[in-house]
């Protein structure tokens, strides 16, 4: 089994004026291929910083970080951009789709920036990716013509299109209602069964329960790291909700 993430004693400091904010104070973390990990923590715990570092949006000050057998410490801006393009699939909390741009074009976007042209036919690949999230009938819709859940699924399709080593989701359900959240979690679980490694950053315990493994951060350190015993299966939850609704109606 491949090791996707290997971090040892990762430290990250921010400077706000003259004040040093120690966002991460020595994080050790290993994540293997096929895992579904939820990173939790209250605001200020350092989980956003950790996510930025995992996603190669930010450099580390100390320690080591190996992503998919590439040491990503102290790379140049361009190298980080290429790593993000090839190894990471981002799903943001605000969807972050380009406005007035069709779903298909949004999904194609990362492929435009692929320098190695790993994927020969971007349009076909993008369609496949939209198909995977169940939106093949919405490819010509622009974000404002899609519901929140659909937008998030477009974002997931965009994250998957480059066949990344890692799907990195930052509070993907924050702006969604509870039912749509469950649908999105069902999609994540399905993708995970297909072998895609997923890291989910969230502050909601219920959402974290859909993951296989939970990591809790506080004050820039990992304080808990455990396998979820009472894991929720989103499809089942959705089924029971629907049954309940029908039951109530009857």
């Amino acid at each position, binding site marked *: 089994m491949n090791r996707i993430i290997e971090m040892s004693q990762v430290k990250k400091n921010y400077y706000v004026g003259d004040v040093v904010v120690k966002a991460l104070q020595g994080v050790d973390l290993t994540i293997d291929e096929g895992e579904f990990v939820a990173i939790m923590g209250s605001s200020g715990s350092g989980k956003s910083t950790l996510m930025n570092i995992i996603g190669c*949006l930010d450099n580390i000050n100390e320690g080591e970080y190996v992503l998919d057998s590439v040491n990503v410490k102290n790379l140049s801006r361009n190298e980080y951009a290429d790593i993000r393009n090839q190894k990471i699939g*981002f799903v943001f909390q605000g969807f972050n789709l380009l406005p007035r741009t069709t779903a298909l074009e949004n999904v194609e976007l990362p492929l435009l*920036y692929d320098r190695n042209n790993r994927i020969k036919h971007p349009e076909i690949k993008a369609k496949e990716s939209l198909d995977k999230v169940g939106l093949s009938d919405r490819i010509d819709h622009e974000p404002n013509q899609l519901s929140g859940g659909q937008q998030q699924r477009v974002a997931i399709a965009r994250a998957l299109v480059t066949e990344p080593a890692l799907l990195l989701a930052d509070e993907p359900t924050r702006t969604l209602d509870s039912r749509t959240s469950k649908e999105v979690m069902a999609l994540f679980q399905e993708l995970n069964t297909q072998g895609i490694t997923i890291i989910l950053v969230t502050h909601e315990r219920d959402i974290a329960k859909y993951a296989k493994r939970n990591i809790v951060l506080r004050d820039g350190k990992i304080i808990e790291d455990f396998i979820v015993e009472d894991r929720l299966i989103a499809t089942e939850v959705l089924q029971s909700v629907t049954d309940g609704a029908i039951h109530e109606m009857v």
Partner: protein
Amino acid sequence: MKWSNLYKIAIKSIMKNKMRSLLTSLGIIIGVSSVIVMVAIGEGSQRRIKESFSSMGTNMLMISPNWRKVQSVSKGASGGRNSLTYDDIEELKISCPSLSGVSAIIKSSGQLIGGTGNWSTSVEGVDPDYFLIRNWDLSSGRIFTKREVESKKKVCIIGKTVADELFQGIDPFGQKLRIRNTPFKIIGVLDSKGQNSWGQDQDDIVLAPSKTVLYRLKGRRDVDRIYVSATSDETMSIAEEEIDTALRKTHKLAPGEDPDFRIRNQSEMVEMASETSKTLTMLLGSIAGVSLLVGGIGIMNIMLVSVTERTREIGIRLSLGARSKDVLMQFLTEAIVLSLTGGAIGIILSFLIAHGLTKFTELVPYINPWVVFSAFTFSGAVGIFFGFYPAKKAANLNPIDALRYE
């Protein structure tokens, strides 16, 4: 990133804000069209000057008396003896093989009486070669002969304006015309030549044999000017040298001494006359160029706003793996597309304006393809120059901050 993709993205974002894009380009549109139109007006008038000079005659050289220094004292051409004589003309005819025609010019003027009324105009005494030199045909009648010149015959050829003024509805051929009370017989009417470069009516003239005018109207012995024509365009400079040698001989000038005559060719005169209009063209062109520059600043302004407004989009692109250079190129392409589109519209507009000017005003703008090309290129350069700073700003954004930007 592929060029086609860059172009596609640029077009897309321009089309998202049609009104704003149009207003942005407007500066360039106005700049480019005004540069082209202004230069076209200037060049048009220059061309008109050149055309009117070429209507003066083909391969023509003008010889006129010049100021001369005699023992360090300048003597005006009009003061004392005029320096050109019939001896000079004879010498030119003998010793200058590069000349195809030589004619004396005797300038005079006077009141004409004849036909239906009277008319005051200039009378020029010329030789038969004059018509060849000036490439001037007759619309009717004949030119006078050498013999008529030598025998000081009182015959004349009138210009179209004179014919219209004095002989409306009558065929002037064979009619009598009194020039300062001396009766002349009209033997021909000149073709119309129109105005010359100074706006003078070239058809308002009476031509008579040079010796007739010299002895019967002026009572002097010297020649005002000599017009000659070279055998071809290539022999012009040889002809000038031959004339110089011949006249130095007849005027008994030592080699190196300042000549008491002056030889001018058409290109000198064209140059002189078009100098002002050239300056004007440059002035107009540079004023218009400034407006093009202002248009460029407009592009920069809008691009800066656009970069701020699209910070989040830039963040998304960066997080998905766009390199700084990709973002830079995206915004730069947008600026260039805006300015080149503006340039293209400006060119179309300038053609419309030029057409309108030709149709509704006296101006005859001439659009030089080279000016169109350079205005277009310059508009592209403006796009690159003023688009670079905003694009650089976009490219240097931190992806995390850009993503968080509300």
